Each structure stands twice: as structure tokens, then as C-alpha cells.
């Protein structure tokens, strides 16, 4: 079992969990992920390692509740435990001094991009971070990024903070202003990554994206995470998760990520109706620490699509 040592809410439906997983903490590199299984009947889901403390043996993940497993994960507190955490999986981010690197984080993708942005800075790059969110409330890690990036541009869809507009607007503006860009890392919703690729492709700016395909084992064994790269199939878990954005078949990724939509929605509906079976299962297995769970937020109901 993997104990949770700290848990806090970063934004509505977005939680940060710090987990005791010493082997993973020791070897983790930016760009890598873990696969977690919450309880005995749970599924295996991939989550990026947002930070690691090798001395303490801690890793940090940032989780957005989008379906049953992530919603359940986000009810847990310090003192509770996950059944399985395996990693670090995937190839680490390509790291060198490219010159000027633009890192684009959209939504929870910001959490995934952050450790790589930090490493890019340490590798000597001039790092411009474009941080996007739907609104001010959903903005992640602003202070942490400010401490690392040379420049920070904040974009919100509704203009409630920073500049109103999409991250691609900010990217285009930089380019229009004649900003030299040597490397782009974009992580966020698939349409966002696709749009960024569309902006940089004609200019042949090397652009890297992290693909959130559906995974099971994460070791190359099932082939379920296959993605279209330059007309060929690759496995996101072992060949990625980062790929050259200009070669990615984003439409295929969108299609494959819809594969279980109906089952996921019904799973989520059952869980929001009555989360107790899952909670009892964890309690019986000794995964829940003393005291009560986080109060189950009413807003869980709104997450099911």
C-alpha cells in the first residue's frame, strides 16, 4: 500500500496528493508518470508525477476529477492509502538547452508541464510559460511557475484573470512580436494541443506534446495506448508519452479516448449516487486512516457528463 502523506485542494475538482513511494521518488524524471489503482476493484489510471522528493521518498500528483476513479481519488486525505502505485513510467522529457522554450499548460495539463518547465530552466533555457485556464478559479500553480519561468503569460477563457483568450492567442502574439522560439512544449486538452501544433507547424518550430491515451498496464504489454505518429502506430506508455506534435494524429486520439464514454458515465453516476460501496471496500482493506473521509462534495454530481 502507498500512504498519502499530504492532500490539498488546488482548485475546484483539482487536488494535489503527496504519496510515499520511495522507489519511484528516487528515479523519477520530468515527463514521467505513475499508474495508480485506488482499491481492489479499481481500474488502473495514469497520472503524471508533478514533483518528487527523493530524500523523503515522496511523489506528488495533481488530479482533476473527471470520472469515477479521479473523483474517488480526490476524496482521500492524508493518512489514507492507495493500493497500487507503479512507476516511473514512460520516457523522460527530452532535455537540453534549446535556447528559448515556450511551455504551454492548459487546465490540469499545467501540472504535467510544470516539472518539465523547471528542468528546461535548469538546463539553461529562457523559459516563457503560457498558463491557460477557463477562469481565475481554475488556475493552477501560478506562484510555483512564477518562481521558475523567466516570463509568465496568463490566459483565461472568460478574462477573469490575466488576458482574455486562448493560449494559442498568446503564442501567436509572441510570434507576431518577433519573439525567437526554439522549442515548444504544450500539454492540455487535445484540441488545445492540436491548435498549438497548427500554429507552430508552418514555422517548423519543434513542438512536443504529452498524449493522454487510455492505458492499462503502462509497460507496453497491452497495446491499448496506441497512438498515430507519422502514419504509424506507437505505444504512448513506452514510446511516449511525449511526441513530436507535428506528427501526431490528434483526431485518432480523440476518437480512441471516447471508446468507453458510456460505461464511464454510468460508472460515475453510480458512484455519485452512492459512493459508500467503494468507501467501505477501502475501509475493510485498511486503506482509510482514522476519522471520517472528506465530506463528499455536492459538486461531484456536476462532474458526470
Amino acid at each position, binding site marked *: 500500500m502507498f500512504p498519502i502523506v499530504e492532500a490539498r485542494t488546488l482548485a475546484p475538482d483539482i487536488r494535489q496528493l503527496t504519496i510515499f513511494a520511495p*522507489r519511484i521518488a528516487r*528515479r523519477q524524471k520530468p515527463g514521467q508518470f505513475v499508474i495508480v489503482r485506488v482499491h481492489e476493484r479499481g*481500474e488502473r489510471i495514469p497520472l503524471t508525477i508533478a514533483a518528487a522528493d527523493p530524500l523523503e521518498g515522496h511523489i506528488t500528483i495533481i488530479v482533476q476529477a473527471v470520472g469515477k476513479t479521479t473523483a474517488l481519488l480526490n476524496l482521500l486525505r492524508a493518512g489514507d492509502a492507495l493500493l*497500487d502505485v*507503479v512507476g516511473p513510467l514512460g520516457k523522460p522529457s527530452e532535455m537540453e538547452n534549446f535556447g528559448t522554450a515556450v511551455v504551454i499548460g492548459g487546465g490540469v495539463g499545467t501540472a504535467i508541464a510544470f516539472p518539465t518547465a523547471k528542468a528546461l530552466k535548469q538546463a539553461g533555457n529562457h523559459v516563457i510559460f503560457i498558463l491557460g485556464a477557463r477562469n481565475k478559479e481554475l488556475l493552477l500553480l501560478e506562484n510555483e511557475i512564477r518562481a521558475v519561468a523567466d516570463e509568465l503569460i496568463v490566459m483565461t477563457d472568460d478574462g477573469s484573470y490575466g488576458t482574455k483568450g486562448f493560449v494559442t492567442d498568446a503564442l501567436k502574439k509572441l510570434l507576431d512580436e518577433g519573439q525567437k522560439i526554439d522549442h515548444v512544449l504544450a500539454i492540455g486538452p487535445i484540441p488545445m494541443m492540436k491548435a498549438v501544433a497548427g500554429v507552430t507547424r508552418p514555422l517548423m518550430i519543434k513542438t512536443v506534446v504529452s498524449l493522454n491515451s487510455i492505458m492499462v*498496464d503502462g509497460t507496453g504489454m497491452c*497495446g491499448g495506448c496506441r497512438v498515430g505518429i507519422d502514419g504509424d502506430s506507437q505505444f504512448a506508455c513506452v514510446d511516449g508519452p511525449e511526441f513530436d506534435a507535428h506528427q501526431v494524429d490528434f483526431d485518432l486520439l480523440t476518437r480512441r479516448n*471516447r471508446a468507453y464514454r458510456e*460505461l464511464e458515465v454510468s*460508472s460515475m453516476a453510480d458512484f455519485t449516487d452512492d459512493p459508500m460501496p467503494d468507501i467501505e471496500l477501502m475501509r475493510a482493506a485498511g486503506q482509510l486512516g482514522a476519522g471520517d473521509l472528506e465530506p463528499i462534495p455536492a459538486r461531484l454530481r456536476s462532474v458526470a457528463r
Partner: protein
Amino acid sequence: MSQKPLPDHNPLPMKERMKLDRQRMPERPPEERAKCFQEVNLGFGEDLAKQESLRCLSCQKPTCVTACPVSVKVKDFIDLILAGDYLGAAAKIREDNVLPGVTGRVCPQEDQCEGGCTVGKKKEPVGIGYLERFVADWEQRSGVIGLPERAPATGKKVAIIGSGPAGLSCAGDLIQRGHQVRVFEALHDLGGVLAYGIPEFRLPRSIVKQEIENMKKMGVEFETDCVVGRTVTIDELFHDEGYSAVFVATGAGLPQFMKIPGENLNGVYSANEFLTRVNLMRAYRFPEYDEPVYNCKDQDVAVIGGGNTAMDAARVSLRLGAKNVYLIYRRSEKEMPARIEEVHHAKDEGIQILALNNPVAYLGEERVTAVRVQKQELGEPDASGRRRPIPIPGSEYEIPVSVVIIAVGTTANPLVQATTPGLQTNKKNYIVADPETLRTSREGVFAGGDIVTGAATVILAMGAGRKAAASIHDWLTTGVWKPGNGQPAAPLAATAD
């Protein structure tokens, strides 16, 4: 092997023995079993087991023993059954085979022990597999599993990578020899293909779990959720964690695809993904379990391939409620590498075998809606010794399906090779190991099972595990990295297509 001849408990004269017919394995009726995951074969009771044992000729030179990859003392254990000493029979098997409940269920006996049986020359061979299973189950039900004694602790630590049959049997032998053994497993559950591949209706999980419990009781340590090559490297195991030897038993778990159009459509699975979702993650019990799998209820399913994996995938999809299951295989039924019993069972359950057919494309917009198939004829034998399929031009036709499962073989799992400098591999990325000693090109590192031979069988993987254990013991006690005289093991031809 020195063994004193056992008394022959068989009361029948030879002639009488040859008159007896092979006892049939009681099985769940096809209509019933096609809808549930309960075991198909119900096992022999005492009477049937004794009846079948009477057929054994107690040959002076038992060719069944030489035909078994690990030389299980078949004649002796059958004699113990006739003596009514079932636990003794189980112990006799365990001298050579640590997982009798598993091999009694999944070995291709027709090619091994039963293939060598003298009775088989005139009549059907003695049901050795059924008898093996009988004593293993008897032992398990009795709850008295004679755990072998452990030699005094040597203080040496051995790391085993992978908890499939190769890793488990190596661990079992090494712990008896007094070494400290830890098995590292990438998944959250133990057993390798026995856990994620072979379905419950052929090999109940409780059988595998019990064997692993026995090993734990003997002191074998298990660490799940550890991907060697990612979570920890072999070099770190040696230098930071104090291991003196490593046995690599990572299997051949990477799925092959055919690179034909439409393979990435939703609903097109590799057999590994499909079987993992259902067997390991229990997707057939969704929503009680969270893992989803495509609803096969009333759907038409195509399974590509002719090996055990294809057979399993086909029968699993049937149990998920499929209306039609087509098993599409490019050679003729005679060439199919699956166990004969599984082919029979599959047909009885209603699997439709389309031999001499090969898919050329999958059609559909978002989810697959049809497979385009091309008919084949057989030409000359190829490198595998089987007759080569030749496409018949203009013979293409389409079959409407909404789920496709591809089971055309697997390749080497690469993570260990990629992170262990100096570990020699062959062209196909299988690890090169001396066939006698299972030594690799790295001192202290041994390898065996599917990761050396390519996809093979449970018993061969177990045999490799035992060989490795003997060789590792030798290395730990002598400290001499003996040059072997054998050539590096050549991979077998893949058997799964």
C-alpha cells in the same frame, strides 16, 4: 536420476489394461459454460482417477517421462494413485514440477507426456494430464501441502524479475536451497500469463493463488508494482540492494499487430489488452469492478489467430455474450498451434473457425463495423515447418463485426534489455542465454522462459526456471562464472499465429 523402482499396484494383467478405454473428463455442458466463467473441466473423482490409472502399462522405460519437458515421474505417481496414496502422488510430481495444479490444466499433453505414452500407439493414451490435475486438486483440498524443507540460510540474495511460471519455479527451488529470494513483478498481481492471460474457466485463479501462498509460507518475498528497468535497474539491484544474482523471467508479453488498415479503430483489441481487462481487471464484472471493456452482448466478434491465446480470447468473448464469434486463421485447422482440447471445447461452445482466411483490413468510422478477409490456400512448408498460406487473389469478402481481437503472437518485453548495459540480445531482442546454464552475457545475470525462447509453454518456462535455479545455486556456492559449452539458446519459432 536415481530412484528405486516402486511396487506396481496395478492388479490387472497387461492384456486387460489394454482393453480399457480412456475415461472422459466430466465437463460443464457447452450451453451452460458458454455463459459463465466457471471451470469447463470438472476434474476426475477418485473412481475415475483409479479407473484411468489402471490403463497404465508401467513400462520399463517410460517414454511418457522422457516426453515431459521436466521429466515428471509419471509412472511412479500413477502407481501411487493406484495405491490410494494421493498425497504421495502429489509429492512425487512436486519433485519435478512445482505447479501441478497449473500444468495438469494447461499443458499441451498431447504433444508431451501423453504423446509419448505407449498405450497411445494402439488406443487413446493414458489421461496423464487429468491424473496430474486430480492429485494436485486432492492435495489442495486436503490442505496438507507438504512444504519442502529449507536448507540453512546462505545469506545470499537472489532477485527474480517476473512472476510467471519461469520466475515462480526458480523462486521455489532457490528458497529450498537456503537463499533469500525476492520476486519483482510489474503488475499489481502475481502469476504472469497465468494471472492476466489464461482465463478463469481454464485455470481458476484460486489454484495459482494457493501456489503463491505456499511460496510465501516458505519465505519467498514478492514485490508487486515494480517494473525493473524503470522502478529499479539490475545494476541497482546488484550495487545498492545487495543481490548476488538476478534471474530475468519477463516473458514475451508485447503484442504484435499486423499493420493493416483500420487497426486503430475503436473495438480492435490486442488479445493481451482484451484478456487483461477481463482476467486481471475483472471487466466481466463491470460495474462491480471499475475496468470497462466493450460490451460484447449480442455482438459479432472476430478473433485473429489460431493459438491458445486466440482460443482463449474467442471463448472469453462468447462468455461476455457475443452472438457470433469467428476465429479467423490463415492456415488450415490442422496447423493450428492451440491445444487440441481447447479447439474441441471452443467448437462445442459454438466458436466458428474460419480456417484459410486472413484479414486484410478493418472497416468502420469510429468503431469497427467489419473485417475484410482474404481466402488462402496452402503452399510448401515454411521455416516453421507448417505449410505456408498463400493469398487467393480476388477472394476478399467482408464479415460484419463490432469487436476484433488480434492474437497473432507476441515479442520480447524490452524494458530490462534497454536498461542493462552489456546484456546480449538477438535480432528480435530476446535475451541470449546459454541453454545449459541459462547464463547471460552479464556476470550474475541469468534468463529463461519466454524472454529467451519466444512465446512457448508453461512447462517449458517452469523447466527453465528450475534449470536457472540449479545454475544460480552453483554460481552462488562456487563463485565461478563457468564458461558453458552450449551455444546460446536459439529462440523457438513463435507458436501463437
